[in-house]
């Protein structure tokens, strides 16, 4: 059977009140270092990172970002293929992204006609 496509939306608390662990901070630092390294190597590949500007459209208003003040910030997304939601869950659980407190990943199947 053919694989389904899933979008995984990474959310993280922007103003976390829990005391951050050294491991959290280390991984945030590492992700910055990786980003900087791309410039140092002259390879500009922004991958699936999301731009900081955006717009939230509601029925009665349009609000332009960045949404630094929001409680949760969508930090990125990834697309994956899996045979089922269960399998997609297993893949995401194994990824280092969910390891840090205050981060959640929402998995939604992409229904293509």
């Amino acid at each position: 059977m053919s694989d389904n496509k899933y979008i995984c939306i990474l959310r993280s608390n922007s103003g976390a009140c829990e005391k951050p662990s050294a491991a959290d901070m280390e991984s945030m630092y590492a992700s910055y270092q990786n980003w900087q390294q791309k410039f140092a190597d002259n390879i500009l590949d922004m991958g699936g990172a999301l731009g900081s500007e955006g717009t939230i459209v509601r029925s009665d208003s349009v609000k332009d970002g960045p949404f630094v003040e929001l409680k949760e910030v969508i930090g990125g997304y990834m697309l994956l293929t899996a045979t089922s939601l269960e399998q997609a869950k297993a893949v995401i659980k194994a990824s280092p992204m969910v390891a840090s407190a205050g981060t959640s990943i929402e998995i939604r199947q992409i229904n293509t006609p």
Partner: protein
Amino acid sequence: MNSIESLYRHEYGHLVAILTQRVGVQHLVLIQDSVQQAIEKAILKWTPNTTPSNPTGWLYLTAFRFFLSEQRTSKQKNHLLAQNPIFTDNQIEKLEEPPLKKELSDSLLRMLFLSCDDKIPAESQLVFTLKSLCGFSISAIATRLLISEENAYKRYGRAKLFLKQQHTSASILHNEPQPSRLASVLRVLYVLFTEGYLSSHPETAIRKDLCFEAIRLALLLSKSEWGNTPECTALIALMYFNIARIQARHDTLGLVLLADQDRSTWDQSSIYKALEYLNLSTKGNSISRYHVEAGIAATHCISPSFAATKWENIVKAYELLAQIAPSPLHTLNHAIATAEYRGAGAALILLKATNPPHWLSCSYHWYAVMSDLQYRNVQISEARENAAKALERTNSVHIEKLLHLRFERYEQALR
């Protein structure tokens, strides 16, 4: 500094900015007097029970009415009215509407963009920002920048005069801030922060309040349509990384070098906030000196000890900085990091290959670094010569004490 005082200071900046935007920068002096009057009135009149429900609105109206009454008694009234159609009667009603919160912060930022004009000397931009937007008095500015009041006043006057000459009509009222000026605005905010951070003022509170003013304005800027850029976010990250360590930079004896700082006093919540802004700053497609400098600060903040510092990352960051924002001070810091990573010999080779400008090559900073590296590379006679030159050129007792201690350590090791 108490919170009431800073509350009034911030109101002062907002009110000066909004009145300037509404009636024109050519009236700046009278605007400042009017706002001062309104705040003094509030301090005398308000008690916890009688504070108006909209304090900002009250202060605004009081200041505006004072401004108007001064105009009416002035001989130049007719001339003023002719020059400023804004003072015709139906316009005055409009001017009496208390400003909204967004309008206040927008005015503050417009004023900031206006004063960050490259034609105004940087040191004047700084004093002007502190006086007009942060509400510090000239004497408070002199204390914080460690300059004389006369000098502070001169710097302030230069910016004021320029703005007055440039904007003799109400032309700025509808002027949009120029995006091209954002780089200057960020630079002024960084200088404002650094003045507080590097200050050798003995009181921590005094050093901190310049830093907090810079952070406050940078946060405001990052939330506005004119300043929400990756550069601004990176600058905020850099400021938080540094403010986290400000306490540890000083002890009862004076300045404390990074290697000797008590890392347990670094403020972890500021470091966490800094990391969040740093990661947010990567969500664009450009890199700036603020990104890389914040990355360097992050490397220090993350490291459990001086010995465990990832010097390789820091050296690489300085190499990147040399490409995107070359500066002789970065080169000097590059050498210091290189000494930790590859040894003092490699650092000396790096410095020998550079051609520092005169202001740096004859500063205590340059000689102190040279001497330090030469001691470590066992070039003792050169090291002693440069140590003496460094001590001759210090301009502060704190630095002198610090250098003495450092050189003495090397001398003791030789005995």
